[in-house]
């Protein structure tokens, strides 16, 4: 609940400050000044806490244990993914994802093993933000949410639903247990991204803009399930020299 409040507060804050923030030029990012500040904050928090924890996690646990943990959370997630499949009218994919849950929860021992993927039922990526996008809702301005990272107005709104529909949220009455599940999942997810972080460090002239633009492209790609309409290539009307 605290997280939801924090998220709302962040979105409101970003919205209200947006009026006076000057734009850096990207029409998708009118709140750039605020976003950069939050990004810088997240970056510090990430370097100080999440990265060391994730590195420790990766160093201490053998690969198969990490895969098991990741699979476990991924299996819980598949339930909400199936619901979003239905909401988006993808009934074939919905039945596949529901089958994944049944398969992996039983033969895969509570989701520790992802047998469904090997059996030809690949994992899908859906969330409520994508469902809203599928329904034709524009992403709105880009926002960097404290502690969470890149999002947009639409996807931030979607996150509220994702949070409420999260099985970890419902799994237990015990707040400490639930929080340790959240922490484990966050660590597991962060550990998977360690190599990607060093790639961004190497690739980007401006990490903030690079992360933003890559993230926006990825979300667009997800909403269109890998086949987004081609964007006009600004320079391509110019003949090759």
């Amino acid at each position, binding site marked *: 609940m605290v997280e939801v409040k924090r998220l709302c507060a962040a979105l409101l804050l970003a919205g209200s400050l947006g009026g006076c923030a000057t734009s850096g030029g990207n029409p998708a990012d009118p709140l750039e000044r605020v976003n950069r500040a939050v990004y810088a904050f997240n970056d510090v928090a990430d370097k100080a806490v999440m990265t060391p924890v994730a590195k420790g996690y990766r160093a201490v646990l053998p690969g198969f244990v990490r895969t098991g943990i990741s*699979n476990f959370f*991924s299996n819980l997630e598949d339930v909400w993914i199936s619901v979003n499949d239905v909401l988006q009218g993808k009934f074939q994919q919905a039945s596949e994802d529901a089958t994944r849950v049944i398969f992996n929860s039983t033969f895969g021992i509570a989701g520790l093993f992802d047998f469904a993927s090997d059996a030809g039922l690949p*994992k899908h990526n859906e969330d409520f933000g994508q469902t809203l996008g599928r329904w034709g809702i524009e992403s709105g301005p880009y926002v960097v949410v404290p502690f969470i990272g890149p999002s947009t107005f639409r996807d931030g709104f979607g996150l509220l639903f994702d949070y409420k529909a999260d099985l970890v949220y419902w799994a237990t009455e015990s707040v400490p247990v639930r929080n340790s599940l959240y922490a484990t999942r966050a660590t597991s997810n962060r550990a998977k991204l360690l190599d990607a972080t*060093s790639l961004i460090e190497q*690739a980007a*002239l401006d990490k903030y803009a690079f992360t933003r633009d890559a993230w926006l492209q990825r979300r667009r790609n997800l909403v269109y399930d890998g086949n987004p309409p081609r*964007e006009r290539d*600004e*320079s391509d009307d110019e003949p090759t*020299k």
Partner: protein
Amino acid sequence: MKIALCFLFAVLPSLAQAQSMAPDVLVRTITDEVTAALKKDKDIQAGDAKKAADLIETKIVPHFDFTRMARIAVARNWRSATPEQQKELASEFKTLLVRTYSSALVNYKEHQIDYKPLRAKPEDSEVTVKSDVKPSGSTQPVTIDYELEKTDNGWKIYDVKVDGVSLVTTYRDTFATEVREHGIDGLIKSLAAKNREPLGSRAGKS
């Protein structure tokens, strides 16, 4: 004889042969060659980014059109750049990409790659080769799409999209901001500065 020839082609696709290859065959050949080389090379596995860069330079770079990539990334400002500036932009952008991906190759792990059937007409001069890459130990495949154009020297790749994220257009806004604030020369300068940072220096940080 035919089998022997096929084998030769599979093992040694030189540039000359690459010129006549179909786009999907070309992409697959490059990927196979590079992964085979990576598997053999203990130095790269141990973190030798310089050697990884050499591998990219010889096996991958010849199949890319860096001028077009720079043109797409620099977008409308490309027109206001002089031919010399365009050349410098293309060369610095190339260096940046090679350096980025040579540090990534060092982290290479076994992948399973599935190529999707090519959907293109024979007369097409631009095609997309799509593939699904599944890193071992991960359940969710990553899509890698290669955009190719037909040139007099065979098919050349001008963009690679990983899960829909283009390694070219992702630079657009950064480049545009740089040009707006410091001009084309400013952009060239900051690319050059980035390229002078020691390789892999960031990886060890934090």
